[in-house]
């Protein structure tokens, strides 16, 4: 934690409104981006950020200077977003099975895997391609999408994700691998058909 952050935390503990505004402006955008990934509705995402700040301010006494303020707030907003979603009720999930690879009895893949070309992958520079990739992520069932977002995008470690989702570390690993495989299948039409 930087000296500047430490000073900010001290001011927040002293109930300094200017320090709160600085914190919201500095970290709020990133927190909203995280909440948007976990909640599809913009208002729900904004509510989660607001809830996260309420929780953070009430828990300041428990904040230890071992982690950065950004890391601490990040974890709080992930938790707030997951709690928000639980409060909205779980939607029925589609099965992933149709998106996973299939194999012959001898262990060989049923279908060959053509390599995605560099020119197809270079289209990630286009906003349109990035939006298509995001829509493919949105098609994953929630239980698997959460793990992919928290591990691969938010870069939380396996144990932290297990704790946040209330599942075992092994379940996190299995879901992550299946989510990546399913997303790869969903991205085939995006990256697998361009020649070059």
């Amino acid at each position, binding site marked *: 934690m930087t000296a500047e952050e430490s000073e900010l935390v001290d001011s927040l503990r002293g109930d300094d*409104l200017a320090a*709160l505004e600085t914190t919201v402006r500095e970290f709020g*955008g990133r927190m909203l*981006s995280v909440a*948007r*990934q976990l909640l599809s509705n913009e208002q729900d995402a904004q509510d989660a*950020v607001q809830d996260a700040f309420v929780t953070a301010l009430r828990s300041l006494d428990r904040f230890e200077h071992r982690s950065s303020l950004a890391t601490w707030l990040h974890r709080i907003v992930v938790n707030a977003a997951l709690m928000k979603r639980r409060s909205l009720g779980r939607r029925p999930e589609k099965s992933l099975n149709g998106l996973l690879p299939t194999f012959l009895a001898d*262990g060989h893949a049923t279908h060959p895997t053509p390599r995605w070309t560099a020119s197809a992958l270079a289209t990630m520079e286009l906003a349109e391609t990035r939006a298509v990739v995001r829509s493919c*992520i949105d098609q994953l069932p929630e239980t698997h999408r959460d793990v992919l977002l928290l591990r691969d995008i938010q870069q939380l470690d396996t144990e932290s994700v297990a704790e946040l989702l209330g599942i075992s570390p092994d379940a996190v690993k299995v879901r992550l691998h299946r989510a990546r495989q399913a997303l790869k299948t969903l991205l085939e039409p995006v*990256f697998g058909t361009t020649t070059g």
Partner: protein
Amino acid sequence: MTQITCRELIDFLSSYLAGELPAESQILFERHLSLCPDCVNYLNNLRATIDSARIACENSSQSIPEDLVQAILKSHAADES
């Protein structure tokens, strides 16, 4: 040393990418990859999937709307009173 099938390799590919495989399994994986272009393609495409997901999400907006800033400040003031 025994060989592994494409299925065994693909089932444990995320563990391979995370460097979580025991040394002996790592050697079996690398031997299989040196002989199987299909599995190399699968591995590369899976890596590209992870990178693409990260890039797609990282490029989303990270600004905070002014009305949300004000709502947070207002809710804190109400919480304090």
